[in-house]
């Protein structure tokens, strides 16, 4: 009898059902495994030296891609916050300006915006390639983020605003202390999605000769003549960076959602 009891207790202590966090980790590892397999197949069936040379050549492009992505994410978040607030503003002019911005920018492809800011605007103000890229990407993604922020703000029940107003807070205090913190939780998953989309779209900046991963890949493939291998390498590098980014977003979601788990 005594032994039986012990067994029962042991089973109860062990983590038989994986928690959500564990499952996330599994997914991440699975994808990483597929990525590694991808790379390995490439290495075995083709010339490994080409991959190694290519990786060395691409390395500073990875850094530039990171720079462009992170700087654009930060700027786009700030723009997005203000545009989102502007969209729900009770002042007509601000609301109109914000929605015009969203409609116009959302309707023009990023590639065209890049060309426009670098070449067309270049006739008046000379902006070097890297800042031009960051500006174009921030403006473009600011519009998308703005819509996400608006949706998040609007998802918070009116009662919350009314309650805090009747507690004696003014409108901006209500927004900062009551609505926004709650909206943040709704906003985070789609924002994380935008992060990853932005990272991949940053490959477009190679068109204005920013030395990002894709630009370096073009140079490498044109001198080494290994076109297929180069782009396999590019795919794997992007995949790995994306995994890191989605992991970061996942951790942030976990932290914010902790007290709210249902």
């Amino acid at each position: 009898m005594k032994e039986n009891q012990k067994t029962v207790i042991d089973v109860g202590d062990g983590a038989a059902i994986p928690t959500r966090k564990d499952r996330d980790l599994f997914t991440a590892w699975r994808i990483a495994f597929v990525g590694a397999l991808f790379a390995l197949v490439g290495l075995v069936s083709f010339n490994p030296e080409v991959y190694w040379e290519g990786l060395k050549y691409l390395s500073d492009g990875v850094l530039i891609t990171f720079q462009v992505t992170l700087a654009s994410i930060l700027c786009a978040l700030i723009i997005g916050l203000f545009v989102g607030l502007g969209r729900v503003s009770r002042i007509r002019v601000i609301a109109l300006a914000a929605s015009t911005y969203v409609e116009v920018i959302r309707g023009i492809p990023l590639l065209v915006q890049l060309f426009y800011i670098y070449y067309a605007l270049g006739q008046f103000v000379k902006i070097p390639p890297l800042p031009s890229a960051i500006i174009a990407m921030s403006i473009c993604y600011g519009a998308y983020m703005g819509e996400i922020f608006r949706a998040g703000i609007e998802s918070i029940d009116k009662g919350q605003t009314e309650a805090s107003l009747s507690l004696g807070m003014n409108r901006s205090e209500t927004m900062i202390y009551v609505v926004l913190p709650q909206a943040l939780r709704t906003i985070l998953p789609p924002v994380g999605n935008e992060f990853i989309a932005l990272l991949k779209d940053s490959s477009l900046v190679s068109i204005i000769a920013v030395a990002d991963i894709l630009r370096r890949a073009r140079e490498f493939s044109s001198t080494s003549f290994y076109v297929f291998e180069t782009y396999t390498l590019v795919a794997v590098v992007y995949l790995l960076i994306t995994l890191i980014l989605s992991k970061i977003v996942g951790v942030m979601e976990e932290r914010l959602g902790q007290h709210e788990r249902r």
Partner: protein
Amino acid sequence: MAKKILAALLIVAVVCGAAFAAGKKRTITFATDATWPPMEFMDAKKQITGFSIDYMTAAAKEAGFDAKFQATAWDGIFGGLEAGQYDAVCSSVSITEERKKTMAFSEPYYQVKQAVVVPKGKKIKALKDLAGKDVGSQISTTGTFAVQEEKSVKSKTYDDVGLAFEDLYNGRIAAVVCDDVVASQYALRTPKYSGKFVIGLVIQSKTAEYYGIAVKKDNAEVLALVNKGIAAVKKKGIDKKLQQKWMGGKK
């Protein structure tokens, strides 16, 4: 009005600058799409190098200006020139009548022919032999113009000439048309492609095709300096040495 004032200020600035900087070297910025070996490409240390680069550096030395090279994507390279992002384009730009309408060209510095690269074993006498088939080239290069001139074939354009060759390798297109120096690099000196491709045809055009330095239409100052340099390089025979260095004994 503002533009006029700006122009006036600019002229004043240039004149003053010239007066002040007597003896100080003028820097000319050349845009170059470094994906066109052996004319201009990135070496392993990510420095722009190649025949055109050496040529212009030598020309700069002869004519007494500083040459700075700026990596630029081929798409929009002429847009950037128009916008004034740089002074000149040194990127294997062929001198054509169409291009002359929107920009000015220096004296030619290299003669080039359009080569048609086909899979080994395929024999063609003219582009017409590929009637109805897809022929690839890099977008808005003279290769594309040559393909489009022959109406019977379908023109397919790529961002990079390397992508066109990859499609040829995969058997999706029948031929690639590009400058002969680049074609011979791809067809003969690449382990992956050599033995699979041959230069099937060098297109005989009515007028000879030359590379030139493109500058903004009314930029006579830069044009004069570049021309002076090119003339000196030719006179001293430096161009022959460079050809030896980058293309081997060919030509």
